[in-house]
């Protein structure tokens, strides 16, 4: 058996996000959104 785990080895239990890969994509998307909002804040008030 490999040291690397299979990508989705347990259900997420989250509505609309059945695979962990989807959860990670959503979280990464939220991160990008935060950076964009902070960039806008910087542009607006500098």
């Amino acid at each position: 058996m490999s040291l690397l785990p299979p990508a989705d080895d347990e259900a997420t239990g989250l509505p609309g996000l059945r695979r962990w890969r989807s959860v990670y994509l959503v979280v990464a998307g939220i991160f990008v959104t935060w950076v964009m909002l902070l960039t806008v804040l910087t542009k607006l008030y500098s």
Partner: protein
Amino acid sequence: MNALDYLVLLGVLVGIAAYGMWATRGHRDLRSYLKGGNTHWLTIGLSVMATQASAITFLSTPGQGYESGIGFVQNYFGAPLALILIAAVFLPIYRRLNVYTAYEYLGKRFDPKTRLLGAGLFLVQRGLGAGITIYAPAIVLSTVMGWRLDATIVCSGLLVIAYTVSGGSAAVNLTQKYQIGVIFVGMIAAFFVLLSKLPAGLGLGDALAVAGGFHKLEAVDFSLNPDRRYTVWTGVLGGMFLALSYFGTDQSQVQRYLTGASLRESRLGLMFNAVFKIPMQFFILLLGALVFVFYQFERPPVFFNQAAWHQAAANGAGDKLRTLEADFNTAHAEKQRHVNAWLAARHAGDPAAAETERAAALAANARTEAARAETRTVLKANDPKALANDSDYVFVTFILGYLPHGVIGLLMAVFFAAAFSSKAGELNALGSTTVVDFYRHVVKRAASDAHYVTASKWFTAVWGFFAIGFALFCNLAENLIQATNIIGSIFYGVVLGLFLVAFFVKWVSGTAVFWAAVVSQLLVFVLYATLSISYLWYNIIGCAACMLLSIILQMFLPRMTPVDTDKATV
């Protein structure tokens, strides 16, 4: 602080600690003592957050926002990416191996000496960190409250030791959940009280405009200059390596999410932090920037550590300091006039006049900053051991001067709750690692669960007393939150390198990675002593050096046999 404040402070701190001890009194076997119960994802998420967010976070970070603006938020840009990687790769392996500590995995993958090296590096850096965790709030709060520093350190340290030793990991998780609740309530209360204290007619939009006008809202910096401490690149790259190492290999965090009832609960706990870490830090920094705005309309002290100022004034520097204070007050009054004129022009829709007044306010601000810098020089000349950095005193000075009674007690409880939550996590991890990776592995291999639980309690207490001892004798000139991150960055890169080789470079053996880690750690020490680059880069340098050297060394060493490779897999 009055009687109401003390009632709130002691009620919150002692109440949570006592409840933690009472609720976890039945945990007797090693598994429940070190791993806690079957914890829900929200408790894990809050516990992970509480372990990282120490008192330093809530004392120092608003001071950073006041002093340098909110750019420090970039330091956390790497955290969400690191947490995703940990949830996807690290966590399933830890759970499948059913380890108590992250370093047990190194032993299974490599060999005993590499396990001991990883555990040893953790004990050194986290042991020092635990000292700072308890020293940081004590030095600031004892100074402003007039309490004895040694008594503050000892009393707060003993309370944490009591419930951490008594209830183990379950008590830590449980108390952290309530402590972080107190922290959220306290910080939100401070935010709204702060807004209510701004001059009549000054809304949040104006406040942000003033903060922005003084360059306090420059959240992101895309500069490639390596000498700049906080940029998007140091945050995403250096911050990711720091977060990967801290959340993925530091036992104080690993132990938090290994308590999960299932892989799902642990993963969701980590994702909770991936989503909320950046907004939380942003909010705390913004609070500091708004305190800066508040002090444009109320005159602040020339030096926020007033105890140090008065001491120097009494020790022969009084004339110089009072002259500087007068210069500061004159410049501040002028700045206040220009800020009011700037806002009036802004409201009148006259951008040219607004810009002129803003430029005049900035010039006056430069004079206040010059007076502050000169004050620091005088204080340092008067007493070379004096702390010349007063940014850690900004927020607490505001709280004590302007918040209503009851809320002051709540905010003091926030600082101590934050100190307790992170210190408890650290002591819990230090005790666990000492027992699992050293005592059970090297000293006494076959003993009963009850014996190891007793040993865990003793080692947790010993580390607690070590932290108290370190705190009683340390003296830090750096901003406290930076001191913690600097210590972490010096060690974390190499430890992360050990784990990344373990996870991803399967043909490298223990001997190669062990010596690569030793050489890389020495290299980081030398570079830190000789270079002036941002400390976040040492996370990458240490990690890259360890990985690269282990691969090169492996080329000259016998490869792992198929039997060894099988042993390394699960």
